[in-house]
């Protein structure tokens, strides 16, 4: 059995799916982020001045790009895998000799690809508003890749455990979006009172946004190594949890 063919089939199917519905998947982030850049960066940002030596527009660009990557990699996997479960197409995979790790990495790869594609669209739009030169390409690429992987895995777990369409919107709406906004997309945590700085450090998204911001414009509130450790640690934990859920058939088998 050639598992690579099964893996390739799954990725192809996932990519065609979100490309086919590009007005739902690729267009909205382009419009939303253009508005962010225009309103927060251009109109309000001009009155804020600089943060850590960067103009406000330059400061918010990395956070907005990464926020788009997070929400779209998560949304891709959670909606695709849950629909697959809901329509019972998952049976096509369960009947076939496709190992659990191929199912997991197939869906996660789909989420990563969509996250990165949306990230690129947002980055291209940001070029209209900001003049960004990449500070550290390796850190930029690796953190965005790891972040997309982490949130694709999280979306997968959400989809496996979800029992209704409500369950797949609870996490993005009530956990992911608040954590992203409070993860320092629009501000530096050093601007917060001491107590809120400490609270913010419990938010993993803060580390990813700051590492990405460091990679792009060389500004960060946290230790970059710690950001990689936290992101890597979460990826390992969520991968193991996903494989456990698939092995037990939780949420997908009777």
């Amino acid at each position: 059995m050639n598992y690579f063919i099964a893996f390739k089939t799954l990725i192809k199917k996932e990519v065609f799916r979100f490309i086919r519905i590009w007005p739902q998947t690729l267009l909205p982030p382009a419009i939303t982020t253009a508005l962010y850049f225009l309103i927060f960066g251009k109109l309000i940002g001009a009155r804020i001045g600089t943060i850590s030596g960067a103009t406000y527009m330059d400061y918010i660009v990395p956070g907005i790009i990464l926020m788009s990557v997070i929400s779209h990699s998560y949304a891709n996997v959670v909606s695709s895998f849950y629909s697959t479960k809901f329509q019972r197409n998952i049976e096509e995979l369960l009947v076939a000799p496709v190992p659990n790790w191929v199912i997991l990495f197939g869906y996660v790869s789909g989420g990563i690809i969509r996250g990165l594609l949306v990230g690129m669209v947002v980055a291209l739009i940001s070029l209209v508003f900001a003049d960004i030169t990449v500070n550290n390409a390796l850190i930029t690429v690796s953190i965005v890749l790891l972040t997309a992987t982490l949130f694709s895995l999280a979306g997968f777990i959400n989809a496996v455990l979800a029992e209704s369409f409500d369950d797949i919107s609870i996490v993005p709406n009530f956990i992911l979006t608040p954590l992203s906004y409070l993860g320092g997309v629009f501000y530096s945590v050093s601007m917060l009172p001491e107590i809120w700085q400490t609270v913010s450090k419990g938010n993993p998204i803060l580390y990813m946004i700051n590492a990405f911001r460091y990679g792009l414009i060389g500004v960060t509130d946290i230790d970059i190594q710690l950001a990689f450790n936290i992101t890597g640690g979460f990826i390992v934990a969520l991968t193991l949890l996903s494989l456990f859920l698939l092995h037990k058939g939780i949420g997908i088998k009777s």
Partner: protein
Amino acid sequence: MNALSIRKLRKTYNNGFEALKGINLDVEAGDFFALLGPNGAGKSTAIGIISSLVNETSGSVSIFGHDLKTDRSRAKSCLGLVPQEVNFNQFETVRSIVLNQAGYYGTPRKLALQRTEQCLKQMDLWDKRDTVSRRLSGGMKRRVMIARAMVHAPKLLILDEPTAGVDIEIRRAMWKMMQEVNEQGTTIILTTHYLEEAESLCRNIAIIDQGQIIENSDMASLLARLHIDHFVLDLAEPVVTTPVIAGYQIERITDKALNVAVPKEIGLNLLFSGLSANNIKVISMKNKSNRLEQMFMDLIDSKPAGEQ
């Protein structure tokens, strides 16, 4: 060699319902096998376990000698499943549904394209290959599922009520197709509620009820055990009273139709002699019910309710 071997298979759902109570079943390679049972008997659970859609509580399943637990990949490679309900992505085209399934089985692209074309042509769906599947009729959707199940050339094909809800013309065409597939060497396990379908297609049969196999034999010997045939006779002229003929139980359905229970050891000749003696002219006759249906009902009815 057995295409399928099931040993002491049990399934208890989380709500405590015991769907399978330790069944054993063997299906020989090349067989056309009927797995029958009333609704809720455990058929779908058994098929679910065989096709890895349901986790068993205990017991073992092996497909062409490959244990489903220890040699999962090889066991699954031998199996194709046509489920009861449509379960493909209704936003995909017919071709991509079948082609993707070939990919999941690790079929190289070139061969997958050839097999997809072959299966879609066999199912008379080639003209619909680029149609989005939700636009297909019910019968076509069923044929898509058969094409998808056959695209990796499985040695064992499980058809779970494949003809449910399709019109008689399509059903007959599907019977022909199933026979051809079986003649080409594929073992087929069929579940159906159309017992005439099982009777005309299958060589061996198992009947499952309340989570247990209550009958497992070849079709011919099972039907030979049916002692009484029921016939409906259409009469040329109306009859006022029910004729009495020794050895036969006769009921008047209408003025011009009789229901007759015919014991096999007596046969039909004496019946017709008796009817002629009563000046009753029969213009046609038919089986009241399908023979297998009669046997099926006898077996199910003979099992006391709640028997373990």
